[in-house]
């Protein structure tokens, strides 16, 4: 048995099934994005206003179910399905805003560190180390005591927790890229440092940054839900999935659906995003497998 044969054996089948995205997770994510974008048109009821006559209605198929509320209602008579649809909006906006800001800040810092090296690099990378050694959830707790819990707090925590990974990745890639001929040629052609950094190196960072960002979406959704569940994230009555799980905590004996259904939404979403993230990574940047 030669090593070459073994290599062929393990790489060939992989190549083939990498070409198309996994369809079920893709469908889940598409549905989710549609829910987020079209929430006001899709949701049958208001997500924050309930009718007291319809309190704790069970989901379809159970006794005590009622037409018009296929997934039941909560303590205030608010429709679970509508709240789930609006909840997708929260999860998605936290991930999109959070990851965009983090990515921009992290990449900028990593680019500076990698490009200039020397003391700039040392200082910035020490900052990364320090940031990594601080406990994120506690920062969230502290922020929520000092300021009221809010969307902004959640974004601050997301940025705080994730920027080090973008900075490290961007720095590493920049170190490799700046050795290459096209950078030297750009210099010879009279480009300044800023032009080289942003016009020539930055576009080359895009694939790996994109991969990292896709892999983070699921993580951010769980993080937001956990913070909201603890009461230090998105404040009620906004229908975040984490808030919904927390709402149903005391009702688990009479009305399990209030907290179990939003949990299933989180689980299915995150699982789909993780599978898609792995696929994007294999397509764009198999090197990152080790990260």
């Amino acid at each position, binding site marked *: 048995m030669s090593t070459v044969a073994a290599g062929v054996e393990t790489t060939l089948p992989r190549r083939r099934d990498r070409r198309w995205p996994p369809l079920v997770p893709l469908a889940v994510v598409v549905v989710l994005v549609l829910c987020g974008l079209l929430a006001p048109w899709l949701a049958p009821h208001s997500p924050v206003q309930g009718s007291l006559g319809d309190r704790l209605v069970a989901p379809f198929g159970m006794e005590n179910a009622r037409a018009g509320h296929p997934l039941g209602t909560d303590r205030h008579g608010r429709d679970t399905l509508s709240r789930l649809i609006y909840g997708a909006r929260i999860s998605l906006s936290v991930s999109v805003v959070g990851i965009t800001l983090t990515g921009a800040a992290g990449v900028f810092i990593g680019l500076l560190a990698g490009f200039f090296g020397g003391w700039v690099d040392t200082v910035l990378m*020490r900052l990364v*180390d*320090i940031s990594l*050694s*601080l*406990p*994120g*959830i*506690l*920062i969230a*707790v*502290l*922020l*929520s*005591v*000092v*300021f009221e819990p809010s969307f902004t707090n959640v974004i601050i925590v997301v940025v705080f927790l994730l920027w080090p990974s973008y900075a490290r990745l961007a720095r590493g890639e920049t170190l490799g890229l700046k050795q290459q001929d096209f950078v030297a040629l750009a210099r010879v052609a009279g480009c300044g440092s800023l032009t080289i950094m942003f016009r020539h190196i930055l576009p080359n960072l895009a694939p790996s940054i994109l991969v990292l960002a896709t892999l983070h979406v*699921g993580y951010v959704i*769980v993080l937001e*839900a*956990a913070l909201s*569940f*603890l*009461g*230090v994230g998105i404040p009620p009555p906004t229908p975040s999935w*984490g808030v919904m*799980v*927390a709402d*149903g*905590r005391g009702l*688990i*004996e009479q009305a*399990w659906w209030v*907290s*179990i259904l*939003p*949990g299933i939404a*989180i*689980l299915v979403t*995150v*699982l789909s995003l*993780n*599978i898609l993230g792995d696929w994007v990574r294999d397509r764009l940047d198999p090197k990152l497998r080790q990260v």
Partner: protein
Amino acid sequence: MQRYVVGRLVQSLVSMVVVSVVVFALVRFSGDPIAIMAPPEASQADIALMRAHLGLDRPWPVQYTTFVGQALRGDFGTSVRFRRPAMELIAERYGATLELGGLAVLIVIAVALPVGVYAAVRRGSALDYAARAFAALGQAVPPFWLGLLLVLVFGVLLRLLPTSGRGTPLHVLLPGITLGWFAVAGLMRLTRSAMLDVLGSEYVKLARIKGLPERTVIWKHAFKNAALPVVTFAALLFVALLNGSIIVETVFGWPGLGLLVIEAVDSRDYPIVQAVVMCLSAMYITVNLLVDVLYAYLNPKIRYGA
């Protein structure tokens, strides 16, 4: 090695200073404590007197130094809600958090290591697929929701286990499983891939050719060498568990530090929040430091600064 350890130690101290500055600044920014404490009929002179008494009229750097000095002596002030020193409450509660964390670590090691090893040994078997499915699922399940699911199944439907509070040994079971779950998935995956690397090597083949019993080959020869990444990950577990305990304690009403801080958030009990954040951060930073030093000790590449 010495240079690395000293550098890492300095960095941990800086982290701790950053935490203390953040805690100090945020709490001071959040409003004038006098406004909350002084009765409405207090005169300007009374307020000024109170301010002087509490040292709030002094410049910020002085106030910060006082704050750090008191913190080092374990004095974080008095809880607004319980009217007792914050540090006393922490001393009361941290045993519960350690008990929960200890059980979670036991579960993680007892489940993740054997399953990870045998999934690698019987690659492609039903056990392997089950382990991989569990690992994928384990990292997507939000822990707070898993806790509620366990409450529903074992507490409400089967009526087998208590679901809230602390008392009998049975009480710790559900929170322990919930806390351990996430880490089991990660450690299992890591053990499996580390074992797969080692099992393909020449010396494992040699051990088999020598006619050693399969168990000796797996545990004494292969696993010993697969253990390096596993050991460091297991140490990192403590850090993850520290974060997770806040969530799990809230779900199960487990009277540890995590629940203490979340209750303090609800009642705006600043001294408690300050004290718990400082103590847990100190633990978090210390464990991180120990893990890095251990890793450097085991792995020369890090020691000599790659």
